[in-house]
């Protein structure tokens, strides 16, 4: 019994330490790329893509309630946005889905889902962030 309790406590502590604290993420950037190589672009190549800062307050407000989304099989991707943030002193690459209110953290290989009441606003926010950041520039090309 004692060993079970100790194991439980240890695993709980381990899980807690592994949990990503998205509320501490900063320097959110969105990149001008929407193709199917989204997941394949190495993190050290991202700077070659046009990028713009996102509204930091809004991003923090959205992602701070994100919970790990347990899925037995990979989720279906129907398009999204490429973003990075600074977390724990390192740059982190994150893909933001255009539907469903979830995002994918490449470092942990986990999906994170926003609470249902934030999903609509999140999807709108991402779209507006993208168009605001890149529309003027691309329309000149």
């Amino acid at each position: 019994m004692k060993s079970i309790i100790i194991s439980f406590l240890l695993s709980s502590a381990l899980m807690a330490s592994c949990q990503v604290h998205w509320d501490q993420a900063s320097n959110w950037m969105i990149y001008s790329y929407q193709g199917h190589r989204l997941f394949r672009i190495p993190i050290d190549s991202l700077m070659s893509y046009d990028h713009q800062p996102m509204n930091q307050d809004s991003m923090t407000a959205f992602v701070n309630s994100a919970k790990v989304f347990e899925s037995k099989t990979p989720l279906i991707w129907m398009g999204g946005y490429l973003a990075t943030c600074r977390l724990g002193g390192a740059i982190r690459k994150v893909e933001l889905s255009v539907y469903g209110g979830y995002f994918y953290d490449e470092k942990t290989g986990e999906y994170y889902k926003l609470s249902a009441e934030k999903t609509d606003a999140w999807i709108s926010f991402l779209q507006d962030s993208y168009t605001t950041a890149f529309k003027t520039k691309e329309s000149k090309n």
Partner: protein
Amino acid sequence: MGAKQMIAPRFTLSDLYHFLMQTNILTSFRLKKPLNLSKMTPRLNHFLLIIVFLLLSSTSCKKHSAIALIDKTELIREAQKVIDSISTAGHPVNERAAQPKTIRWDLAQLVQIGHSVGISAPIIFDNAILMKASFTGNYLFHLNYLTRLLFYKDTAGNNTILVITAFPDSSYFNDPTRPFTGIKFVEDWLGHPIQKLLYTPDGHIKRYIPTTATKQPDAIEVIETCYEITGYNYSPDLPDEPYYWSEPAGCSTAYIDDGSGDGAIGTNGSSGGGAAGAGTASVTVLPGNSVIKNIAQYFQCFTNVGGSDHTYTVSVCVDQPDPGTRTPWTTSGDGSSGSSSGNNPIDAGHTFLLLTETYGNTTITRNVGFYPLGGVSPLSTTSQGCLNDDETHIYNISGSFTVNGAQFFNILNFVSQGNTPGYLYNLNTNNCTTFVINAVAQAGINLPRTVGTWPDGAGDDPGDLGEDLRENNISGMVVNLNGGSGISHPNVGQCN
């Protein structure tokens, strides 16, 4: 509905609480020290209970008899008339007041305002507006749930319209079962400020009085906190030009407990702006135009008129997961940043519609796609369906058809069901591609249905549909092999 609507008297503890708050009874009977019934004799205890019971019974009867005599429909009609006259006579003075909105009269409730009976109804904003307040932590909340309209006749018999917007503090936000704490803005219909009320955790309601009229507090006992609502907003008319705005919400030293402490205004509303220890308070309004909540409004610019001067075009836009091939899905990579879970998303691509009406110099364009409301996977295939504005979605191939007004509107009618509760997205049987194929079929356009397969499932898919458009000579279709980037097919055209 010619008969008057009578409200059946039904007494609940909640009614009692609101009624007492509205009629100032709680504050009128505020005691210096709390009663401790356990220390009283049983006889006195019973006596007090009887007195309280009689008092409550009489006041509750009074309330219901007054409300029961009111014709709710007539009150609503009167309120609507007043609002119409105000709207045509003046202009909104703040960003919140300027937002297009709908009053949910169907959810209106009769409320007692002093000796008068008024009506309170939630206000729903046409664009999904989300607010953020630093004094509520980092939570986001919908303005819809914070704003109510209150209509009543004042003591002089004048019609009064108030808009009560309430911002919860973090305590109330975390536990809304507790009595409300935060700041309520009371304004007229055009947004002119009338009053600000601070609801504190100790049950006090403080009125905001400009600093010049306030007794100067001791510097040591008060740390002044100034509240300000700041934010940015996106105008639907100018989606590319967000602008910033702010409104003062008063400083803590200017909120004084003047003893009246009534909650007469807006007891059904939510309030906001908790004082607790915040620095400068800010509220951010976030725009909401990607998720299409009101599809009728989204399509309202399209006109269904006869004649040949209006041209209607529907384009089937396909984002193939592996452009130029029938591959129905691809794995999204190996997690180049270090993922080792093998749980990377499956890229299935997407199919959506680009709808355009042109006449004279006018062009109306709308993008619309069908999605699941939540995440789906091959083992969890079903979710409530929802419509999204896909103007930033890329596609690599499309097929366009010119249709007449009737055909065009048949497609719109079909698409409109995408948000209907109970109308489900299914990865195998009703996915985004199926939805588009079925939509254009309403106009007599029969696209090939090549079924693709994937682990644990099969169905219509963008990979196959893209190649079907490329390879088949479909009658009346113009193929575009260049596709569109995320910003090259924006929605165009606004209307009232």
